[in-house]
């Protein structure tokens, strides 16, 4: 396989409506997705991320710009050619979107039927796929008889039926409970490793990105704000929009009054229950004071924010930052002059 990107988006913009009522959903998006990676796109609702993923298979036509899939600009294709290309781009949705009047097996057969695969062959492939997603025993069940997680598994099997090169996931776990989300995410990762399908995940949940993505793009105000490896972007967000998303300002709107340099730590549940601050003080040999904290333990995991007053000397500050980096704790330096 070549090293060319599987999907390349160039100068893509999307405007809904026209004249004074026009709304810009996407503004000059440039993006390259490499074959075999799991790429995350995160943003708050209304940021344009769903429109972006729909532009990748032209469910939504971009106003300007091009979408290059596997070397072909698909915006220039005829309807017939586009339908052929779409068989190479699977998609799953928040609402599963299964055919309610077909059982699980026939749902998986559906894209094969569309592609003109003979019935017997389609059935055989669908059975294989259902057992791959762990639903071998539910092939005769109708969607109404399946749980949310099972429905999404059927949808994944269906999306993979035509052996696509890319799987688009539009908030695929947002309607599922945390445990089911876990199992769906592990399934996606497993499929990525086993069959090498490139996965693009749209979500508003940081945890989803952290768990399975290699790279992430942060989208806000119709534009891509930041793009890079997940660890790098999440630990050290550079742009205001990324910080807003990662440090979730709306969680702590209280006005802080103080003067000097502070470090804001974010606990997003990925840390264990080790006494992080106490260890830090011992290891770094510097004393810090906690000036503000709002954290809570859920299932032994810590969530929330903490504001530490930094020591005067830079050496201590560096030690603290090095320690936090080694512990994978997200932080941001803030200065207050109040």
């Amino acid at each position, binding site marked *: 396989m070549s090293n060319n990107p599987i999907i390349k988006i160039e100068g893509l913009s999307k405007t809904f409506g026209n004249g004074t009522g026009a709304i810009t959903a996407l503004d000059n998006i440039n993006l390259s997705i490499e074959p075999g990676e799991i790429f995350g796109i995160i943003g708050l609702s209304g940021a344009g991320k769903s429109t972006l993923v729909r532009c990748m*298979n032209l*469910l939504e036509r971009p106003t300007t710009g091009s979408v290059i899939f596997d070397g072909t600009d698909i915006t220039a294709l005829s*309807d017939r050619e*586009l*339908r*052929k*290309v*779409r*068989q190479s*781009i*699977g*998609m799953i*949705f928040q*609402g599963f*979107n*299964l*055919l*309610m*009047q*077909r*059982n699980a097996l026939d749902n998986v057969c*559906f*894209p094969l*039927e*569309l*592609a003109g695969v003979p019935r017997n062959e389609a059935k055989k492939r669908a059975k294989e796929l259902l057992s791959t997603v762990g639903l071998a025993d539910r092939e005769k069940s*109708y*969607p*109404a*008889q399946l749980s949310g997680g099972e429905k999404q598994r059927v*949808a994944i099997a*269906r*999306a993979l039926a*035509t052996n696509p090169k890319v799987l*688009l996931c539009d908030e695929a776990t947002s309607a599922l409970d945390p445990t089911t989300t876990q199992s769906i995410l592990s399934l996606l990762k497993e499929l990525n490793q086993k069959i090498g399908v490139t996965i693009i995940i749209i979500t508003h949940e940081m945890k989803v990105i952290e768990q399975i993505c290699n790279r992430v793009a942060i989208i806000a105000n119709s534009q891509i704000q930041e793009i890079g490896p997940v660890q790098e972007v999440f630990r050290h967000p550079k742009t205001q929009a990324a910080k807003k998303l990662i440090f979730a300002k709306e969680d702590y709107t209280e006005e802080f009054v103080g003067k000097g340099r502070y470090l804001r730590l974010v606990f997003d549940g990925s840390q264990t229950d080790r006494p992080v601050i106490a260890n830090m003080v011992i290891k770094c040999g510097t004393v810090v004071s906690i000036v503000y904290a709002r954290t809570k333990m859920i299932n032994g995991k810590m969530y929330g924010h903490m504001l530490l007053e930094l020591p005067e000397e830079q050496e201590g500050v560096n030690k603290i930052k090095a320690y936090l980096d080694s512990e994978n704790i997200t932080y941001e330096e803030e200065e207050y002059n109040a």
Partner: protein
Amino acid sequence: MLNEIIKEIFSAQMLSLVWQGLLETLYMSLISTAVAYVIGLPVGMLLVVTDKDGVKPNPAVNTTVGSIVNFFRSVPFLILMVAVMPLSRLIVGTTIGAKATIVSLVIASAPYVARMVESSAKEVDRGVIEASLSMGASTMQIVRKVILPEAKPSLIYGAAISSTTILGYTAMAGAVGGGGLGAIAINYGYHRKETVIMWLMVFILVLIVQVFQMIGSFLAKKNDKRIR
């Protein structure tokens, strides 16, 4: 007096007349419903597909077809019956009786059926259609493999409603030379003032509506896989 009426109703002659009327009514309404669906189903699908939120939006086609449908829907049935008499003569060779009535029944009910079909088809989840598009389905495939099967229970239920409406039209057709139970009700009940016979016909019509509706509901439910 009462005795005489009962005697008349249950006379062999009357019974055979009612039986004849019943068969005619069923014949008219079922054939008309079937033909109305042959026309109305594709027209309804065309309306859904060309809708601005449809699979292939086409405002020109949608507005034109929609206006024609609305036009025929707004002409009162009795007036339409009289107006299409020349057409009936052309198609079936006569302007009276059951056969002639079918022509006007079809013209009056096909647009109604088209709207019923449109409304059922619009119930299909937009997300399912989007998913099918993402898999590379063509417009025709979406109509045949997604909209029709997914809307099937609702379409069947709609067919029950349409057939009972058309049954009601057949009774009206009795007033202008159509056959069936409606004609008997009008000829005997209204013109000869034999109210009992009129009510008897009404009673039979009510029974047929009940049966149509029951069959429709049963089939709709039986075909719906959304029920656990």
